[in-house]
């Protein structure tokens, strides 16, 4: 996957968007590669980007006093990394570190927000896709909360 354009065409998150929408998004996106162990963003940092993971794995973590960083979740190919850019105060709730060599599409948060402000239809399409991801992640998290493997 050599170019930003190819990534935009291939990523399942953007499937179904019309070509002009994809072109506009391409203007706010570029291809990025993370080496294993590299920090993508830090907890508390300014949330002004988000990523569509094409390949590899990323772990979300949180520093607990006395324990150090604890992994909250592992994201992989097809996942969307970063939601806090959508709403004020635009601060990351968790940290993110690449586990494997990770290829992703990095998008400019404020630029995409502006695109959505000017084109509500594009905004609706993107919000729908985000909601699907968030709902899916929430359901999985709720399943983990059920502690099904716990003592009856």
């Amino acid at each position, binding site marked *: 996957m050599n170019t930003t354009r190819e990534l935009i065409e291939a990523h399942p998150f953007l499937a179904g968007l019309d070509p002009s929408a994809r072109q506009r998004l391409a203007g706010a996106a570029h291809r990025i590669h993370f080496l294993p162990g590299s920090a993508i963003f830090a907890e508390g940092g300014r949330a002004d980007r988000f990523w569509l993971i094409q390949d590899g*794995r990323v772990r979300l973590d949180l520093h607990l006093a006395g324990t150090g960083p604890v992994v909250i*979740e*592992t994201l*992989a190919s*097809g996942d969307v990394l970063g939601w806090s850019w959508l709403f004020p105060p635009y601060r990351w709730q968790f940290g993110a570190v690449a586990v494997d060599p990770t290829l992703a599409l990095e998008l400019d948060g404020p630029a995409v927000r502006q695109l959505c402000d000017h084109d509500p239809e594009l905004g609706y399409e993107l919000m729908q896709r985000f909601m699907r991801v968030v709902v899916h992640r929430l359901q*999985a998290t709720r399943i*983990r909360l*059920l502690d*099904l*493997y716990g003592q009856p």
Partner: protein
Amino acid sequence: MTTPIPMLAPRPYRVVHRHAETADTVTLRLAPVGAGLGAWSPGQFTMVYAFGVGEIPVSISGGSGPVIQHTVRAVGAVSRAICDAPVGSVLGLRGPFGQGWPEPPPEGDVIVLAGGIGLAPLRPVILAGLNEPGRLSVLIGARTPADLIFTAEYDRWRAAGARVLVTVDRAAADWTGHVGVVTTLLAQLPAIDVGRPPPTGYVCGPEIMMRLGAEALIAAGVPPERIWVSLERNMRCGIALCGHCQLGPLLVCRDGPVVDAGHAARLLQHREL
């Protein structure tokens, strides 16, 4: 009458080896004192009797020749008594009972999806699958890293050529592996090629996990009639005489515990069936 005489009385088995898998789960290897049980197949269970305490169904997690291996989690009085059984003590076994895991067809991959103690009934499937390790993917989920069972064997399975992926629901501070529900591991398998023979899925774990696991396998392209789950119900006799283990038309001890995912889903959709 040609109906075989059902086994009502337990046969004595001595604990010859025990290994603590986790804080509440123990693997026991048991050898018959006198006459042993007949040959067993993966997915079958025995009724394990702790003297004077009671009897519970436990899936067979391995064994060779006359030795039977059981991996038991202490969740009640009987299971706790079994988990506490020291080497040299004698338990009673009846069985083997039930419909086990069907053998995979000659073609197509094998995907094993295990949650928590559900890995125990699947272990015989994994061991059999190591004969053709290139086809085998084992996806293991547990609550925390400390709750993973058979951890000493994962690398052995990998070394034999199987793909083994592990995840936990909640990580400890020193866990660098995958974190998330076990179905998220499916995303790490190569996409299923509809042009090739379809894979067969074996799913075992808490009921909700089996339902979600089967749904995830179906969404990934595995046909529902090739996905097998292992059901669980209150069993008292294990031999279709006491009526306790009914799930609609099924007597789980006789018609299960392994059933295909479609059948299970149709039954389990009714609350409190």
